[in-house]
């Protein structure tokens, strides 16, 4: 898993997403909780960026801001040349056609079968005939080893299968940017390994820009060309996991110790059996 992304680190890429002085708070005026405090960073096109940080530090909020599902209190969020903060409903919808999103719980439609879930973006956003849609969906089902499950409902699937179906649905229209919200949360190590392999395969094939929000540290860092650490409203950007070890900020040293052990070789007792 480590080799696939390491080669990309030294190449320079244009930013496809830029946060410029962005702030976001929640709560009442009397009791305001600032999640992002005037943060700025860029996400390079075609690369994999991992956003990490403790719970409640604004990782998922950052994804929702990129998608325009939440509005920033101040600052600009430039996605593919357009400022999401100032876009109207219609322009925002147009911009979202460039995104694919894998949600934490899959966000599959309960009342639809696996086939219908995957076919939905094709039916709603293309003018393809039903035969062509069927062919495409069946091919995707084959690629993601989901054959034979097309008539099942989400409630009949395991957590890992739900994520695969969610990924299949997100990739149907070959998005330019893929956002992954905790793609391996709740999965066992084997399923986690499967999801990462699936990610690497689809990333290499489609060349999308990947933004991964994850708690699965340090394993998810192996996929990263860039790592963004969020802490108490502030942000630190690293070109790779090696750079994190060089940081002298106390909270980052603590983060490294807590998540990767003193040597930075993984959590105590954990073997990188998935490599």
């Amino acid at each position, binding site marked *: 898993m480590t080799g696939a992304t390491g080669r990309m680190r030294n190449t320079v890429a244009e930013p496809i997403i830029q946060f410029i002085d962005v702030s976001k708070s*929640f*709560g*009442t*005026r*009397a*009791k305001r909780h600032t999640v992002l405090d005037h943060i700025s960073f860029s996400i390079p096109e075609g690369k994999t960026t991992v956003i990490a940080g403790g719970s409640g530090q604004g990782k998922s909020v950052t994804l*929702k801001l990129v*998608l325009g*599902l939440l509005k920033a209190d101040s600052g600009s969020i430039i996605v593919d040349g357009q400022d999401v903060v100032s876009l109207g409903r219609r322009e925002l*919808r*147009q911009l*979202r*056609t460039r*995104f*694919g*999103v894998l*949600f*934490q*719980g899959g*966000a*599959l*439609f*309960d009342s639809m079968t696996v086939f219908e879930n995957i076919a*939905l*973006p094709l039916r*709603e*956003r293309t003018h393809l005939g039903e035969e062509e849609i069927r062919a495409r969906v069946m091919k995707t089902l084959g690629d993601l080893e989901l054959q034979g499950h097309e008539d099942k409902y989400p409630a009949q699937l395991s957590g890992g299968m739900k994520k695969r179906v969610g990924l299949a*649905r997100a990739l149907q229209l070959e998005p330019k940017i893929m956002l992954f919200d905790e793609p391996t949360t709740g999965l066992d190590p084997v399923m986690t390994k499967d999801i990462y392999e699936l990610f690497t395969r689809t990333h290499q094939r489609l060349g999308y820009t990947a933004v991964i929000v994850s708690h699965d540290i340090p394993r998810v860092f192996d996929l990263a060309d860039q790592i963004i650490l969020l802490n108490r409203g502030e942000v630190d950007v690293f070109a790779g996991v090696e750079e994190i070890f060089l940081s002298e900020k106390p909270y980052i040293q603590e983060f490294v110790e807590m998540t990767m052990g003193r040597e930075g070789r993984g959590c105590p007792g954990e073997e990188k059996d998935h490599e």
Partner: protein
Amino acid sequence: MHESADFGETPLILRPFWFLGDATLYLFNDLGRMGIFLFAALVGMFRRPFRLGEVGKQLRFIGTGSIAVIFFTALSSGMVLGLQGYYSLHKFGAEGMLGSAVSLTLIMELGPILTALMVTGRAGSAMCAEIGIMRISEQIDALECMAIDPFRFLISPKVLATLISVPLLTAIFDVVGIFGGYLAGVRLMGVSSGSYFNGMMQSVTNHDIRLGIIKSFVFALLLVWICTGRGYFVQQIRGAGFGAESVSRVTTQAVVLSSISVLIFDYLLTAVLL
């Protein structure tokens, strides 16, 4: 994410004013988003591609699925009206007016109101819970992220199906209710069949029927707006809590709010249109 009332460091003496201002702001904020929601839902009905299949599915659920409930409610209401009407009119020797009393009460008042209340309880609550669950499980976010308009896809078919179903169910209610009144008044109490139907035909005018139809449309819009809207904004409703609990609380709130709104608008429409 809903924000709860928080006095912060407001002095004790100013807290009632703080609370009043905060509640007023919340009310206007809520009305504003519900207004925008209704507008988007109505516009969504005319957006292509039309989801006729989904409208058909909702018609089956809201309309066909409610026929049994409507039938029994209408029959019992009509029979009670027949008996009560006979009891009251008999005192004045005016049993011949029974058909008129039953039919006017049903067509102008009870038909639209009871149909709306039954549909709210049976289908409105289900719509609210369904949309609420879709919201908390990020299914609505998923629609937005796929650049699919959640109003056109999810809300508008329910609105259209309710606007079609409720007036038709009201018509069924009226007919079954009049039949119930006939059973109680004519078959049980011995009022003449001719005077029952003749009284009905002479007293019910097109204006009365129009009033009933207008009421049923307004009630349909109210109930579907409140029930779908509360589900859609489940995470922004103050005091609703989180997760499954929020859906159950908001569903209860939607049913209560819809029912009260139907009763209030019934008075307003009667006062304006009668």
